[in-house]
């Protein structure tokens, strides 16, 4: 008991201490941050509790094919990002003197109105999405703390707000790095315990190969499923690995880069941490089928596994790891939502009172939404990742990677991406369709796919029509001296 209390007190003390590292810095500027901090912060922002607990449950149901999602996250979601997007993003941001991802796109495509529209989108979608992340952390904490969930929701929201208010971007990066490290420790413990229980990774895989196929793992647990189930895994890879490129909280992580050389240091470390985290979690969760009874809810797999295999101290550290995964994602999302409200919407540099006002608004929005159950809130939470990705991805990559600047093309791309993705949710998503499904097979096409391809078509249409813009658009000047 004493040791449990000690762990939590130590965690909160380090959290507060690290958040204060940002004191005296601009809330939207990180200053110089080491590569280790940036690598851990990137992974911690990327991986939320959903990725560990929710997808861990899927790995139990689908088997080792979930490693494809892990591989996609590592290579597409991390390696490709740092290889092709991170440093050009930083150069664009510096050249345009953009302080937020919204400003990067608005200044890049020379459209302040686009910035305001994106700021509104980020404030609403990310503010509400943060409520789901905060509620996830509160529900988990309710398992070990004798407090009601509603109180824990406000407690977590205030803790996240504290990091954003006191630390700004710099404080958020440091706290995320610490949380990434805790996640790594928690997952390593679980992986070691599972390997020990099943006789090792190779022995476990051999046993897994002997299990009979199920409805979900239609070809067994060491093969990619056929038909709809296999397609589900492939769409999961694409949505989690490509949509991440354009999430504003991920784009903002590149703003802290010092040099192209630093990118070369961050990349391997981020890949290493992510491989151990998601690869380890999904491998262990797949093998858990050998030791767990049949589970009805995938979300119960990881908690049951932890309770079964780890001693009390291990349980505390694992809960800490999952809470860390939620908190790190929530602080990153909060920071973007607050900067959208305090700076991007008013269109001028945020003063301290404005920043505080933005935080109070976000706490009330997220905390309030987390308390109530509603179809609209569920829609915003579920759709946030895909809608933001489908809306921003094309115009962002066109700007930073290809140096294409066009107000018209950006507007057509963003509008087509947003509207088509949202419309697809309302027409063809089993949970949110407002009318009977007109085409049953349409439910198999993820809204992100529809949104992305419409956004791409919108970009090319706008680009073709924007004669004046095309003349002024030039390849973004990436200075060779800065690449050395």
């Amino acid at each position, binding site marked *: 008991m004493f040791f449990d209390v000690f762990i939590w007190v130590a965690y909160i003390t380090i959290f507060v201490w690290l958040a204060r590292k940002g004191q005296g810095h601009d809330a939207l500027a990180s200053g110089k941050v080491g590569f280790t901090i940036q690598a851990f912060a990137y992974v911690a922002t990327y991986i939320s509790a959903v990725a560990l607990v929710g997808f861990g449950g899927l790995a139990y149901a689908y088997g080792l094919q979930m*490693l494809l999602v892990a591989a996609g996250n590592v290579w597409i979601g991390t390696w490709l990002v740092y290889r092709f997007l991170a440093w050009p993003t930083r150069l664009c941001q510096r050249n345009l003197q953009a302080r937020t991802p919204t400003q990067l796109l608005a200044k890049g495509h020379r459209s302040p109105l686009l910035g305001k529209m994106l700021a509104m989108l980020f404030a609403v979608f990310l503010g509400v999405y943060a409520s789901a992340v905060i509620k996830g952390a509160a529900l988990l904490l309710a398992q070990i703390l004798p407090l009601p969930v509603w109180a824990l929701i406000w407690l977590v929201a205030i803790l996240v707000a504290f990091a954003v208010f006191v630390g700004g971007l710099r404080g958020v990066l440091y706290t995320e790095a610490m949380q990434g490290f805790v996640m790594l420790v928690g997952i390593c413990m679980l992986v070691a315990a599972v390997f020990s229980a099943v006789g090792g990774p190779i022995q476990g895989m051999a046993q897994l190969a002997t299990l009979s196929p199920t409805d979900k793992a239609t070809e067994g647990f060491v093969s990619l499923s056929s038909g709809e189930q296999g397609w589900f895994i492939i769409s999961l890879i694409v949505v989690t690995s490509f949509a991440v490129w354009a999430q504003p909280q991920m784009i903002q992580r590149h703003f802290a880069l010092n040099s192209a050389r630093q990118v070369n240091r961050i990349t391997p470390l981020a890949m290493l941490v992510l491989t151990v985290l998601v690869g380890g979690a999904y491998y262990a969760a797949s093998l858990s089928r050998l030791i767990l009874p049949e589970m009805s809810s995938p979300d119960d797999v990881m908690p049951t596994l932890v309770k079964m295999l780890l001693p009390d101290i291990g349980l505390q550290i694992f809960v800490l790891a999952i809470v860390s995964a939620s908190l790190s994602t929530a602080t990153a999302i909060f920071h973007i939502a607050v900067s959208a409200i305090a700076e991007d919407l008013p269109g001028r540099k945020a003063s301290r009172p404005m920043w505080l006002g933005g935080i109070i608004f976000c706490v009330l929005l997220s905390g309030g939404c987390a308390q109530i159950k509603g179809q609209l809130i569920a829609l915003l939470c579920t759709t946030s990742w895909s809608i933001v990705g489908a809306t921003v991805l094309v115009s962002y990559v066109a700007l930073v990677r290809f140096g294409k600047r066009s107000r018209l093309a950006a507007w057509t791309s963003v509008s087509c991406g947003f509207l088509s993705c949202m419309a697809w949710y309302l027409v063809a998503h089993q949970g949110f369709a407002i009318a009977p499904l007109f085409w049953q097979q349409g439910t198999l096409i993820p809204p992100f796919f529809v949104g992305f391809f419409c956004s791409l078509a919108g970009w090319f249409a706008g680009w073709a029509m924007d004669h004046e813009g095309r003349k002024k658009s030039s390849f973004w000047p990436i200075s060779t001296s800065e690449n050395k």
Partner: protein
Amino acid sequence: MSILSILMLADTPVIIAIVSLLGALALTLVNLTRLSNRRSN
């Protein structure tokens, strides 16, 4: 039982996933070792 014989149990996509994750681990460890060696020199 060797890792190769175990991989034979899986089908191609899962083999690709496992090999690419192991490849990521190996690559990153090599890169990080090289960086730390360069720093110590």
